[in-house]
């Protein structure tokens, strides 16, 4: 009778121990696991004097020869360090813009800048761009633009009437470690997410 009771208690103990071990190890797994989050990269462009005048059909214009000091802001929430590249292109009101999947590779590239951004960090990348000169052909105005003291690049074939409604297009590219090349946008949960900005300007 005593032996039967001991055996019964031992069985009960084993069952209890297994159940409680399952509960406590599950809690430990939950506590030690990384919390799920949606990865993203924030991208912005700012100027100390503001960008209020840089919209379509604005009355203000950028003088030729005046260097403009602007800043890119890149916020990395990808849960890993990122190697980003920002490509600056010039367009007009009718040129195609980048979209969620495709960059505007047909537009002339004015310049590019690269930076390593740590996870959780917001990186500020200063850059300077200048309209070095402008010229007219067949009733259209074309610009020679330089960025970060790099050699100037012509906006051709992108031109506008009277130098109005040009666009600077900024594309964000990220380095894909497995393939070893830069890709447009950043890898989202299901597909690549294209990131781009644009600023309108007139040239005087």
């Amino acid at each position: 009778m005593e032996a039967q009771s001991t055996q019964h208690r031992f069985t009960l103990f084993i069952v209890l121990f297994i159940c409680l071990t399952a509960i406590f190890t599950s809690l430990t797994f939950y506590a030690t696991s990384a919390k799920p989050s949606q990865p993203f990269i924030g991208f912005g462009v700012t100027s100390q004097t503001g960008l209020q005048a840089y919209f379509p059909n604005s009355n203000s214009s950028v003088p030729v020869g005046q260097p403009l000091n602007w800043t890119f802001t890149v916020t990395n929430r990808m849960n890993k360090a990122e190697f980003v590249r920002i490509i600056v292109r010039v367009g007009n009101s009718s040129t195609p813009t980048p979209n969620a999947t495709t960059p505007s590779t047909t537009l002339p590239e004015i310049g590019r800048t690269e930076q390593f951004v740590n996870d959780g960090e917001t990186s500020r990348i200063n850059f300077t761009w200048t309209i070095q000169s402008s010229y007219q052909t067949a009733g259209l105005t074309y610009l020679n633009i330089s960025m970060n003291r790099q050699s100037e690049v012509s906006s051709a074939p992108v031109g506008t009437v009277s130098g109005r409604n040009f666009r600077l297009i900024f594309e964000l590219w990220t380095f894909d470690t497995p393939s070893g090349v830069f890709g447009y946008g950043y890898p989202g949960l299901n597909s690549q997410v294209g990131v781009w900005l644009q600023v309108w300007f007139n040239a005087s």
Partner: protein
Amino acid sequence: MRTLRLQFLTIIVCLLVSSAFLIAPPHIAHAQSSELVTARQDLVQAFQSIQTAEQQGASNSDLLPLTAQLNTALQYEEIADMYSRQGNETLSVQYAVQSISISSQVSLKAQSLGSSAQAASLYRTTLSYILAVIVALLAAIAILEAGRVRLILRRRRLLKARIDYGGTEHAT
């Protein structure tokens, strides 16, 4: 007659060469020094080391200085590239070598941080699970023996209680 044929051939060759340029405009390229190529490769390698260290559990605060150093190496590499485009190979190589040196240091530090973070992470995880099992064991014993403990406590209380033999009052 022979002179005319020679002139005709010369014109044909000139036309062919110029048409080749029209079809494919000359691509402006510059030869990169081996140091510049290595600088770029080392930058990517150091970046990969940082990403690996992150996966192994290295904290952002530990990796932040390494990223800053890597950005410095990137700047040197860009300057080296600029000098290379300008044809100043001496300065280009100087900056490329500086970039390589920083990238190599970053790569080594990242690897060291990664391996120590991995060891610490493994230790923490193992300790957590061992604690979980110990807590489960103690909880199982506590639940099973709760009735017996209660019985012992009650018995002890009874033993400690004073025995009242009818008090000091006598029957009259």
